[in-house]
């Protein structure tokens, strides 16, 4: 995206214009389904204690490796049980909580760090800008999964480090966008006018520039969020992310991998949940982009 493309996004007139635009457009059935699925996932994550029929660590060793209820298993275990007699459905619900929570925190960290660094780069220009953009290029050049694995190897695994690491994934995208937007905004009359009035630069950014950016940042979130879920589930799947006795969707799939031949239902439901969630976010993201990005209007998709 060039700076001229972006300047249209940064018009000062209506600060939350992107919200109005969003409100006025009606979603299709597919988008409706995606939104419904995402709402369900969030509900599961928030109210896991009330929705899960069992605790995620409750074992009943006499009822191990039961197939799902619909395939001749016990009716009280809807998706069957695993090798320790734990209810697969309950474990998936609790795993959603962990995975969604990590992804949300990661996205928040990435978006904040990236946006702030982007604004700082555009505000100071010069060597600060060069340095931050060098870091952006560096981040984009090396596959992040490799970096994450290396850091986990050196420091050992713990939850806080995992969240911080996942948060650092994708900050470069936000930084690039924020920098471009600030550069184009600073060239516009209204920013100059406010500054001439003696308003502190920080206030200009918080009160005037940031609200205008939110639409574009939201679109970036929808691109970043599925990738973050994939990063966490990949790490957990490899046994290097969330550690047992905790659960994560990736960890469940990793555990289920050893029972594919005999009890495929241990891992597959978690995989389906990851897939449907990333799919739903991608679809909603595409839809948001069409609605929020005025540059795309009237252009062939």
């Amino acid at each position, binding site marked *: 995206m060039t700076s001229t493309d972006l300047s249209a996004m940064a018009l000062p007139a209506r600060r939350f214009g992107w919200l109005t635009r969003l409100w006025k457009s009606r979603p299709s059935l597919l988008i409706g389904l995606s939104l419904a699925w995402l709402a369900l996932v969030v509900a599961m994550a928030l109210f896991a204690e009330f929705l899960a029929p069992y605790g995620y660590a409750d074992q009943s060793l006499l009822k191990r490796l039961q197939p799902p209820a619909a395939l001749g298993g016990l009716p009280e275990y809807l998706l069957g049980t695993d090798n320790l007699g734990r209810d697969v459905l309950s474990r998936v619900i609790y795993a959603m909580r962990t995975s969604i929570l990590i992804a949300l925190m990661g996205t928040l960290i990435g978006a904040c760090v990236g946006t702030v660094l982007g604004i700082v780069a555009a505000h100071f220009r010069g060597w600060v800008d060069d340095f931050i953009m060098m870091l952006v290029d560096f981040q984009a*050049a*090396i596959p992040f999964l490799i970096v994450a*694995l290396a850091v986990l190897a*050196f*420091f050992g695994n713990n939850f806080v480090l995992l969240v911080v690491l996942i948060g650092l994934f994708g900050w470069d995208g936000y930084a690039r966008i924020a920098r471009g937007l600030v550069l184009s905004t600073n060239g516009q009359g209204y920013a100059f006018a406010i500054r001439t009035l003696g308003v502190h630069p920080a206030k200009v950014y918080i009160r005037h520039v940031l609200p205008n950016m939110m639409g574009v940042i939201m679109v970036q979130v929808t691109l970043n969020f599925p990738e973050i879920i994939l990063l966490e589930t990949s790490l957990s799947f490899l046994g290097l992310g969330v550690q047992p006795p905790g659960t994560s969707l990736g960890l469940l799939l990793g555990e289920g991998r050893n029972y594919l031949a005999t009890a495929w239902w241990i891992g597959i439901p978690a995989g389906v949940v990851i897939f449907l969630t990333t*799919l739903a976010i991608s679809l909603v993201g595409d839809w948001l982009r069409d609605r929020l990005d005025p540059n795309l209007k009237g252009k062939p998709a």
Partner: protein
Amino acid sequence: MNPGFILSKLARGSLTLLLTVSFVFIVLRASGDPAQIMLSDEASPAAIATFRERWGLDRSYLEQYLTYLTAVLQGDFGTSFRDGRPALDVVMERVPVTLLLGFTALLITLVLGIPSGIIAALFRGSWVDRLTMSFTILGHSIPNFFLGIILILVFSMTLRWLPSSGTGSFWHLLMPALTLGTAAAATIARFTRSSMLDVLHQPFMRTAKAKGIAHDKRILRHALPNAAIPVVTVLGMRIGGLIGGAVTIETVFAWPGLGMLLVNSVNQRDLAVVQAVVLLIAFTMVVVNLMVDLAYGWLDPRIEVHNRRVAKA
């Protein structure tokens, strides 16, 4: 191609490498005493003393950094504590296995992605287009390790057609390469389609039509070369994805390449091997990005001119 363009790209690549080496050095030093970490717990005090001597751990950070940098430049990444061999040797013997998987996956990406993107663009709005686009969204959203597990479940466990893990024959290669290639193919198809659509609406395409150039020739000679540039960019970016994806896919299919070595080494904290793998991958990425940049200049001379102008301004 002018040498200034190549030189500036080379400088940029070297800077990225230097940053990676520095990053590894900082992480190594920040995570504790390297002598304790790099050697196993059972290492004798004499071995630890030798190690400290060799890496100059009693000297200043700057000196340590320079020692480390020199060692890395000479291809000395320390020794793997699992079998006591140089880490570089342990890593290099896995490279051919990973390259085989990587290039097959890349081939699948190109063969699936580019033609389907072109066809979707040419028949925009038709069922072919809608079908291709649906597949790209699915291929983009499905986690590659999940796709791998589904393939194993269907083709190895249920149908018993293909081996689920290991290496040795073409049939062993098929599932991992397909899993790795399809996600990238989805991205490439998407970009090829949008890039083709952009080009097809350009005035020069109308001019070509007005001049009476045949349809096929217009597509092949006029549209494709112009649509290639964004596709090459994305392809360069996807190489990183392929390498990252190889880590999980190799583990799923027990493919004994670099990715599996990395995961095992991280699990066993064989840090000499971990840093060797990370630096090798960084080096590969820098070389790939350099090739992509040079390919631009070759595909579109305007980019080089533009770069030069920006450099002067």
